């Protein structure tokens, strides 16, 4: 069903666009990080959709299956393997970002990006 794949492509593009929107327009840093993590999810969804085969079977060779029938009908497993790695990378990146946010909250007492991550080059240059 090409309809499903088209819908999935649109969903992943929508996720990427939501992420880019939140990167520019949302001020709260935790929400910004949540929004940016949607970009990663959109990319993952797109790559999984590449391997999908309409009316196919899960790419695991069970005993008793005919090999040539399996090769013709199974989904393409390479993208699935890539996405596994990518999910874990995304989660670890998110964890590191949240840890940095927790440290910085102690110093600034706010979650606003405009205050927390403003231009710092002037303050440090000439402090008498």
């Amino acid at each position, binding site marked *: 069903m090409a309809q499903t794949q088209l*819908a999935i492509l649109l969903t992943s593009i929508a996720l990427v666009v939501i992420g880019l929107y939140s990167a520019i327009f949302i001020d709260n840093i*935790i*929400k910004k990080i949540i929004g940016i993590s949607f970009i990663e999810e959109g990319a993952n969804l797109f790559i999984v959709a590449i*391997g999908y085969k309409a009316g196919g079977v899960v790419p695991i060779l069970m005993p008793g299956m005919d090999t040539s029938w399996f090769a013709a009908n199974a989904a393409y497993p390479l993208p699935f393997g890539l996405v596994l790695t990518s999910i874990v990378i995304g989660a670890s990146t998110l964890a590191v970002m949240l840890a940095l946010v927790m440290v910085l*909250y102690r110093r600034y007492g706010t979650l606003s990006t405009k205050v927390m991550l403003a231009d710092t080059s002037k303050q440090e240059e000439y402090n008498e």
Partner: protein
Amino acid sequence: MLDFVLMIIIILSAILALIQKDLLKAAILTGFSGGALAVLFQILLAPDVALTQAIVGAAIIPVFIALAVKKTQREDS
């Protein structure tokens, strides 16, 4: 049919998470989005990815965010 419903859930919960004033609700809605994505992966014939995404996207990431919210502040001001 289920896959279209899941896609709508993913996008709606993503948008709802970003317009919440309460950050804890945003964390829970992120978990909704991740969980729906896991079910969608299962429909797309990728059970191994679905398992990983169910653990990471529906459990670990919301817990991380909730911990960060607990250590900082809950309202988005």
